[in-house]
């Protein structure tokens, strides 16, 4: 899977020898990009816009990564609708899925995907979008750019996925007594924000005001407890009339904990994810990191250590990826999960090991 990083779309277009071939463009938020740039050239470019991209040992909020694809991606133009009958996902053994990370319909879409794919299909991916946290058109095909959309990239290679987050228990358990999609209204029958604020302010020694919610909340996500002990992290990004707006849905009556992070644990989690995904015996062509942007914001300058931790584990295999608004992965045994503040590592491996 051939990949390149360009500082701008113009640089990419100038370097392109021909308009032939299917390309996947992973565009960083600050990169100057208008869909008309590729539309007018009739290039077979599919892709999405993310807060940042990862290429080799660095992460960039500008520029773009270009990957050459063997198969044409499939676009679900409105994920609120049922998946079009023309989109046949059977027979695909591995895929990458990018979805509008601020859509309210991600959960139902992933459920539809689960019902439509083969039992043994492995997939991973993440939520596209910008750090403004305003929903925009961020998923594109050669013909148009959409919001509330998803891009499914079938792979011909074998895929192995590792998922870890490294966040730890701070307080709980609590019951999410009232929720609506990705809005957590009540915790233990009280306004969610009041409960959350009290615990977080006490632990952090910081006080919330009208402008600093995400600055503090990025260090204190919520965790949904699951049966097998896994904790699915939910990132509160805004407050809304006493409720917390999350990236991803929170089912009513979920049991939740408030979590906090230590930098070394998060870095270790990325290493563990790489460990799970990468096996030296397999012929990994590419390591694709899907890492939550809020981890980068939390880790700040230490975030490069997270990339290095992955790189260290996989040796000479090329590492690239995206920083996302929510991460996607499945283990083929049950449902496809939509995570927050999590590091997902996908090892794209050749079948010829």
């Amino acid at each position, binding site marked *: 899977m051939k990949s390149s990083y360009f500082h701008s779309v113009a640089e990419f277009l100038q370097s392109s020898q021909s308009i032939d071939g299917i390309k996947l463009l992973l565009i960083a938020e600050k990169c100057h990009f208008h869909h008309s740039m590729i539309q007018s050239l009739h290039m077979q470019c599919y892709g999405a816009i993310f807060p940042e991209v990862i290429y080799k040992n660095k992460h960039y909020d500008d520029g773009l990564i270009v990957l050459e694809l063997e198969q044409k991606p499939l676009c679900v133009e409105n994920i609120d609708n049922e998946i079009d009958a023309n989109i046949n996902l059977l027979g695909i053994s591995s895929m990458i899925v990018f979805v509008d990370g601020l859509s309210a319909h991600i959960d139902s879409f992933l*459920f539809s995907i*689960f*019902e439509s794919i083969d*039992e043994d299909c492995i997939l991973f991916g993440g939520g596209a979008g910008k750090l403004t946290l305003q929903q925009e058109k961020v998923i594109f095909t050669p013909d148009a750019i959409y919001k509330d959309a998803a891009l499914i990239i079938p792979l011909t290679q074998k895929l192995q996925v590792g998922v870890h987050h490294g966040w730890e228990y701070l307080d709980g*358990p609590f*019951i999410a007594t009232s929720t609506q999609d990705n809005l957590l209204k009540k915790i233990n029958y009280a306004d969610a924000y009041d409960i959350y604020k009290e615990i977080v302010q006490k632990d952090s020694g910081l006080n919330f005001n009208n402008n600093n919610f995400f600055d503090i909340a990025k260090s204190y996500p919520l965790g949904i*407890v*699951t*049966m*097998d*002990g896994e904790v699915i992290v939910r990132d509160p990004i805004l407050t809304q009339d006493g409720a917390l707006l999350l990236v991803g849905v929170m*089912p*009513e*009556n*979920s*049991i939740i904990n408030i979590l906090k992070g230590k930098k070394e644990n998060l870095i270790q989690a990325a290493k563990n994810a790489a460990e799970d995904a990468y096996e030296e015996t397999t012929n990994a062509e590419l390591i694709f990191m899907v890492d939550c942007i809020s981890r980068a914001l939390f880790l700040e300058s230490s975030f490069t250590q997270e990339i290095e931790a992955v790189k260290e584990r996989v040796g000479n295999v090329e590492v690239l990826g995206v920083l996302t608004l929510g991460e996607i992965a499945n283990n*083929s*045994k*049950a*449902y496809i999960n939509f995570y927050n503040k999590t590091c997902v590592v996908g090892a794209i491996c050749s079948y010829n090991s």
Partner: protein
Amino acid sequence: MLLQQLTISYECLSSIGNSIELESMMSEIVITFSRKTGAVTGSYYHHRNDAEPLIRIGKTIAFNLSDYNLSTQEYYLFTKDDKQIVVLPLKHGYLKFIYKDKEESIQKLASMFANFKQKINLSIAACNGVKQLEELNDDLEDRVEKSVKQIRENEKMLISQSKQVVMGEMIEMIAHQWRQPITSIGMIANNVLFDMALGEIKETELKISIDKINTQVMHLSKTIDDFRDFFKESKTEQITSFLEILEGTMSIIDKQLQGHNIEIIVLNKSLNTSFYTYKNELIQVFLNILGNAKDAFDDKHLKNKQITIAAVSKGKNLHVTIQDTAGGIETEIMQKVFEPYFSTKMKKNGTGLGLYMSKIIVEEHLHGTLTVTNTTDGAMFEITIPLKERNYE
């Protein structure tokens, strides 16, 4: 581990019985149970022998249960390839969940589901009960609709019958109105013939006789006009006054009342406030009430026969009372006088529709009220109708 088990138990339990609509209720159970326990597929079969589930989420995996008797155990566990299947028989149908690589925890899961069985059964019974109630309610609505339709049909028929009755009564009234002028015309004509036979006829006397005949003919003609006007259907409200209504009524019935020696006393006769109403229908009401009073006097052979009609404006309404001295209505039948086919005048071929139609006319067409009470001397009918200043139709 305990927290995780409690968590899943709580979340699964919380998903039971949250809707009174069966499909929605079971859908929430299947989705929650499946997702919280990591099932590859979850389904609910409403009956044991259903080929297709009522609810299914997740992957479509064939596993036929028709060969198994699912009535003895709390739950059933099956294995097929790398899948584990949990079947939870319910009172009528069953729940089925399929897992992949969950050999270690499958027994605990099945036990947990079995603990929820009674609550699920009760919730299904509640949904079915609500559904039956809704069906019963729908059926009741249908029946009420049919009954209302039937009542409307009956009303139409009654109105038609009532009109026929009124026609019959009118013919009798016309006969009364015409008897005197026709007799007069006959007498004048005989006198003229008699004078001619005696050769004593004079031109001036002949002219006087012809004028008298013309006067009587005009009276007959006016009677015809009055009756014709009355039978014209009121399609829209007309501007009128109490005085006009009273004159319209009396032009039809006064001779008949006079023939029965009934004295009519009109109070506030000068009340001439203009208002919009269905004039002929209101006249029909007056005629019905006055006709009933006449019949009551006939039955009781009273000497003092008086009907007092009074009208007064009260706020935005016209209030009319028609009071007779015929002894009143017996208390036992007071509540029934406005019912259809109720009559005390069997001997006189009373149809029992007059007061019923009057009530319908006043209350449904004219948007007023019609009531009856007894006074010391007789019955008093009270009509209240709005003094509409404009025709809103």
